[in-house]
């Protein structure tokens, strides 16, 4: 067979392993998730003691009737928004800073950021807990806060988790945006500064529009990551905080499913998350389309 004539099925042959894996371990579980959310599914059904019964939207009515769900949903949205805004602000500011300094400070900041990026979420969470520990942590000593407990209050606990999340996710934004700025021709920036534009003005009127595609990618990526934070909340607030005050949707679903064996309620929460993130994705695709990107 002459390999230059590409038979129509060749790409599908190359795609087959990926499609099998994604179909079996991504698509099928999503289908199952939807299915479970419409059934009565608790420990009794898992062990086969009772038959599974179809509930229709029963689980969803139960979920939407629960004031705690709305409270957790609100907390998740506000927390994710705060994380995204802080991460982007820190990441972009430091990316600009990187372009202003010589090699040594740049390398130092790059390496420190890579370290924070590489730190696993579990270890990052425990280290930040130790830093802010009321008895043995250096932060309370430095700030003169005595034995103030950061994880006791709702807001301060969320704030502590936010600091950790920003610490470990700003490097992705910084490195990506920095790579983008490097690709902007130096003359453009020089011309702007010769015309007397301030740093802020250069960012707002020159860099930000040119970096728009990159900024869209990092924003969407951050929204997705921060909306489904699990490890940090679970470890730092010990499973959702005192009386569940620091629950976010992901941890809430986990607690419902695996701590109280209400698998169908947990699945319903999962479907709600899935739909919210799907909406975000659609916005993203529209933005990509508008930029006329060829896939």
């Amino acid at each position: 067979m002459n390999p230059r004539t590409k038979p129509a099925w060749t790409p599908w042959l190359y795609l087959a392993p990926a499609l099998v894996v994604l179909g079996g371990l991504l698509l099928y579980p999503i289908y199952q998730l939807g299915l479970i959310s419409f059934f009565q599914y608790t420990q009794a059904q898992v062990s086969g003691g009772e038959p599974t019964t179809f509930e229709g939207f029963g689980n969803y009515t139960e979920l939407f009737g629960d004031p705690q769900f709305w409270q957790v949903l609100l907390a998740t949205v506000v927390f994710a928004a705060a994380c995204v805004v802080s991460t982007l602000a820190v990441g972009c500011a430091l990316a600009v800073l990187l372009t202003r300094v010589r090699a040594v400070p740049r390398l130092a900041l790059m390496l420190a950021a890579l370290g924070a990026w590489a730190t696993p979420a579990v270890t990052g969470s425990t280290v930040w807990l130790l830093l802010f520990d009321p008895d043995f942590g250096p932060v309370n000593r430095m700030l003169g806060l005595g034995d103030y407990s950061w994880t006791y209050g709702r807001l301060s606990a969320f704030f502590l988790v936010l600091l950790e999340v920003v610490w470990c996710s700003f490097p992705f934004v910084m490195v990506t945006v920095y790579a983008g700025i490097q690709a902007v021709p130096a003359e453009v920036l020089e011309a702007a500064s010769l015309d007397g534009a301030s740093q802020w003005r250069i960012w707002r009127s020159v860099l930000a529009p040119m970096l728009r595609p990159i900024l869209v990618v990092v924003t969407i990526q951050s929204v997705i990551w921060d909306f489904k934070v699990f490890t940090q909340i679970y470890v730092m607030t010990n499973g959702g905080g005192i009386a569940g005050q620091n629950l976010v949707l992901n941890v809430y679903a986990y607690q419902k499913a695996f701590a109280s064996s209400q698998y169908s309620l947990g699945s319903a929460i999962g479907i709600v998350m899935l739909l919210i993130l799907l909406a975000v994705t659609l916005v993203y695709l529209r933005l990509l389309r508008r930029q006329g990107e060829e896939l």
Partner: protein
Amino acid sequence: MNLLLRMGVRLGVRRPWRLAAEASALLIAVVVAFPLYWMVLSAFKPAGEIESTEPRPWTLSPSLDSFRRVFEQQDFGRYFVNSLVVACSVVIVSALIAFLAATAVTRFRFRFRTTLLIMFLVAQMVPVEALTIPLFFQMRDFGLLNTLGSLVLPHIAFSLPFAIWMLRGFVKAVPEALEEAAYIDGASRARFLWQILFPLVFPGLVATSVFSFISAWNDFLFAKSFIISDTSQSTLPMALLVFYKPDEPDWGGVMAASTVMTIPVLVFFVLVQRRLVSGLGGAVKD
């Protein structure tokens, strides 16, 4: 005149600003690195110094007690190997599958190509944590609960979409002419794929694998949900939390375990740093 002006701009006006920028860059680097420094420091501090109400940013008598405790009390070496096995299997399998898929979507024009690409993009957005519940039952039906396989399989699936997306740029960068030249010289399709394209795309594969390595190495939720009774199959994140009891955590043990867990990722990151940056640039631009 012009030259003088420019020198003046450079020396007189710009210098203080640049020095201020460099000073703040260094200061920020110190702040960012501080948690990691504190982690390693606390791992080496003797027990009395960690649980002291006057924490000092140095230690005069470093000790290996915490590390010893970690490796003796817990079968930490074994968990380390378990984590390594999971992460490496995920990296190798998903890199190979992603390479084939990325080749298909960049080197061929076929029906549903764009649809597929959008599907890969959408798949990246799926909150995998939400799938823990159905995956739990699926792993139970496969008989994989309490085995490392229950961690490897889902992570392969979840790292694929991003890996394919990122590899596209690298495969695209290999010129079409090379492919034609290979065929004219009588190379078969398979030979071109594995002996020409694969080595050329390899740097991209390395950059991509950082992400699959990290997601598998860091995984906490699946390990917590699928490895329920057989602790010999535990991975590092679970083992680490044994030392962390919310009421009276063994900080020395936690920090020593954290250090052991962080170092391999750190090494990996520093090694592939350059390729990572260019890879991200490529993935974002294309």
